[in-house]
């Protein structure tokens, strides 16, 4: 068999075989285990250190700016952020700028963490309105982010259940960005740009973000310009944060399949290039 024949066979591999190989590479590490060492990047550590320096018991804003389609990647970040903040007894005012699924994801994750994780880990349930609040969703995120700089109550007179903010202990002395210590963004879309350019630049609130890996390269420039204190990029960023808070979760579990599939993709890239060079001009 000459090299042209080999190249021809390689270039005619059915794409469905490749899909099957990727599927197997995803499933097998779950079954047999494929633990990976996690090295913490500077941007993840910076975010952790910043939150660590915030005085215990402070109030911070936490956003759930993501759609259900990216839950696997960003929900572990939300959970890791909540764990870190509640270990420091911080109060979390949550909101979302995403209409499709945002409010219900916020409700589900916060309730689960408050009723299950907090009881197991901290020995007490976190109470709605005292330790956390869900402001819900309001349309036109640009107007929301700008308006909150003047008054939270101007934009959110009530929480997402329609209860006035004044009736909650958590918001008694909170009405604008300067009343909270930090803005923790978890997002899968370009809304981070608005938070940075409006909330940080115009109103001076320090912020850090956990974003999908697709978006992470874009936001590195905000680290360089010090408009953002730290950044979690994709599932790797979430796994790094889980390591920093010493609480392995879904992201750490997913790093095994992630690494295995990456190896598989590298193998196929090498295979494709081998076929290309073997085929030469004739191919």
């Amino acid at each position, binding site marked *: 068999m000459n090299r042209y024949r080999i190249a021809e066979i390689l270039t005619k591999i059915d794409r469905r075989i490749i899909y099957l190989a990727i599927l197997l590479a995803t499933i097998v590490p779950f079954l047999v285990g494929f633990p990976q060492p996690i090295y913490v990047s500077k941007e993840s550590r910076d975010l952790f250190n910043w939150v660590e320096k915030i005085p215990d018991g402070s109030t911070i804003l936490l956003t759930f700016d993501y759609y259900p389609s990216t839950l696997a990647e960003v929900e572990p970040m939300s959970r890791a952020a909540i764990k870190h903040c509640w270990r420091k007894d911080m109060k979390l005012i949550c909101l979302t700028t995403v209409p*499709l699924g945002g409010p219900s994801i916020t409700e589900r994750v916060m309730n689960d963490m408050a009723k299950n994780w907090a009881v197991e880990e901290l020995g007490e349930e976190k109470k709605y309105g005292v330790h956390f609040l869900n402001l819900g969703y309001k349309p036109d995120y640009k107007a929301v982010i700008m308006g909150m700089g003047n008054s939270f109550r101007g934009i959110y007179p009530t929480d997402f259940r329609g209860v006035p903010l004044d009736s909650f202990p958590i918001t008694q002395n909170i009405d604008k960005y300067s009343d909270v210590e930090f803005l923790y963004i978890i997002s899968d879309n370009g809304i981070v740009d608005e938070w940075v*350019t409006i909330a940080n630049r115009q109103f001076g609130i320090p912020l850090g973000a956990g974003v999908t*890996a697709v978006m*992470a390269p874009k936001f590195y420039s905000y680290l360089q310009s010090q408009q953002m204190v730290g950044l979690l990029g994709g599932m790797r960023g979430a796994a790094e944060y889980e390591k920093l808070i010493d609480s392995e979760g879904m992201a750490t579990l997913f790093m095994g399949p992630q690494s295995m599939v990456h190896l598989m993709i590298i193998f196929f890239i090498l295979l494709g290039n081998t076929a290309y060079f073997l085929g030469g001009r004739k191919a």
Partner: protein
Amino acid sequence: MNAPGAGLIEMSVAGFLILSIFSFLYKDNPFYRLAEHIFAGLTAGYYVGLIYQTVVVQQLALPILNDGKLELIFPAILGILMFTRFFDRFSYLSRISLAFVMGNTAGIFLIQQLHGLVLPQTQATIINPMAGDWLLGAVPGGIIIIVGVITTLIYFYFSKEHKGVLGKTARVGMVFIMISFGAHFGYTVMARLSLLIGQVKFVAFDWLPRLIGVN
């Protein structure tokens, strides 16, 4: 991802729709199209309900009726004028609303981009590359930023043919752009795989074991 507390029926609906979407990888089929149409229909219906509740009811009707905020009638009129586009005779009236939206958006966007993006990002590139520690990478990093910004900007300078020194500099800029594309591509692969892993975990290890009674 497995939602805590989700019942078997909800999980089965989710699992069936996930498999229907993935079935497109084999070839186009009715299950894929069913899932696609359900998604499109649900999204549209959800948006209509949500916008009606959060805008029309919460931000317009209730403030006017309960708090007497009559000034909200003006934005309501602007909103209604948008619908005149459906009537040829009155469609010109929608331009009033569009003019308001465009002017308002342009004004806000201009300040936001200039003040929040252009100036701080430009400022971040005006650095002393020799300040900082060589060993910690600050000096090489500073030099790379300056060279990268200048050569990339030159790559997008099209008023003179890219020949000689200009051409060589633009080529260096192109290398920086390619490195940036490579980083984006790598991160994108990682992101898409993360989503795949999440769905596979849900189907293979959360839903199916529960469906067949193993879990």
